[in-house]
């Protein structure tokens, strides 16, 4: 999954306009980043990157790019 594809998927997940996310946004600053968005992100990681992420992995992420690093982390399965 490329970074561009990831940002597009995250924009859809967070109900943002295409191109709105740069990747550097802090998750705590995104109004739509709530418990439902976390679950939706876990689904995205599973269906588009084959990764089953834990809530702990996600809680340690601070910005959108950290989430991108998670879905591309070769150590996580």
């Amino acid at each position: 999954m490329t970074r561009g594809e990831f940002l597009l998927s995250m924009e859809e997940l967070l109900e943002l306009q295409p191109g709105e996310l740069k990747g550097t946004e802090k998750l705590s600053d995104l109004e739509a980043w709530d418990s439902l968005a976390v679950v939706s992100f876990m689904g995205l990681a599973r269906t588009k990157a084959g990764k089953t992420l834990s809530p702990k992995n996600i809680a340690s992420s601070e910005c959108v790019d950290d989430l991108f690093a998670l879905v591309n982390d070769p150590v996580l399965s």
Partner: protein
Amino acid sequence: MQAFIRAIEYHLPETVLATAELAAQFPEWSVEKIDRKTGIAERHIAAPDECASDLAFAAARKLFASGFDPSEIDALLLCTQSPDYFLPTTACLLQHRLGLPTRAFAMDFNQGCSGFVYGLGLAKGLIETGQAKRVLLLTAETYSKYIHPLDKSVRTIFGDAAAATLIEGRESGAEALIGPFVWGTDGSGANHLMVPAGGARCPRSSETAAEIQDDSGNCRSRNNLFMDGAAVFEFTLRAVPEAFHQLLDRAGKTVDDIDLFVFHQANKYMLDTLRIALDLPKEKFYIAMRHCGNTVSSTIPIALSHALAEGRLEPGKTVMLAGFGVGLSWGSALIRWA
């Protein structure tokens, strides 16, 4: 003897909680957003004086009204986490209320979303060891009584319901009609989905009734149902695919041999994710929860009942069932429609 599912009926309480009502109460979640994520338009909610046993009674009466005789029931299994009393066993109350014979075996078992599959395992055991010929499996929940009205994380998902399934024995044939099974339990995740207070470990008190608000604005006390949605989602994505492959291996079958997949109807987003992760064809992956929500142990029999009514369950069809949730507990089984 060979156990098989003879009939299924279900009952929903009268009061309806529509998604529009929830969206009005929680404006941060639109009707479209709730609908897209949960796939639920309506949940049915038990009346204040209506217990899980009342719903189970209504479902069983519906089943008997379709041509079955209560006096021929040898065993009653009630799956519930909303019993009438700490004791006696609610199944004993239902034996009397339904007019089942006093010679009948009757017991409750406390399971949630995996409960229907566990019930099938117990019923098969009773029948195929000659202890019973007809087993009435009742699944009934009133989770709404545990849910805080300001907790949208669970209020949008769960609905109350009961289902009645008649499992009978017949002369053995070439292939099992219920089974094989794959079971799983992981109590380390017990705190991900629980009502913390009210049992012997933590009796209800003014302290447990103290309300707190979580980071998403949901309100609840320790007397209420709590669900860590992300933790339950992770568990599901790990446990269900593994059990799925184990069951196919155990049965010596492939996806092509299965006519219908009926998984616990947790919510649409979770089911869609599982379907894609398992690469299952959409037309074989049955979803029937829009009118009633996640009814815990009744979701699978409710879905089977709809599949039957739609002509999707003709004799000889092979169905994979998968129940998973609170416990954490999971169970998968193949059934062949007789």
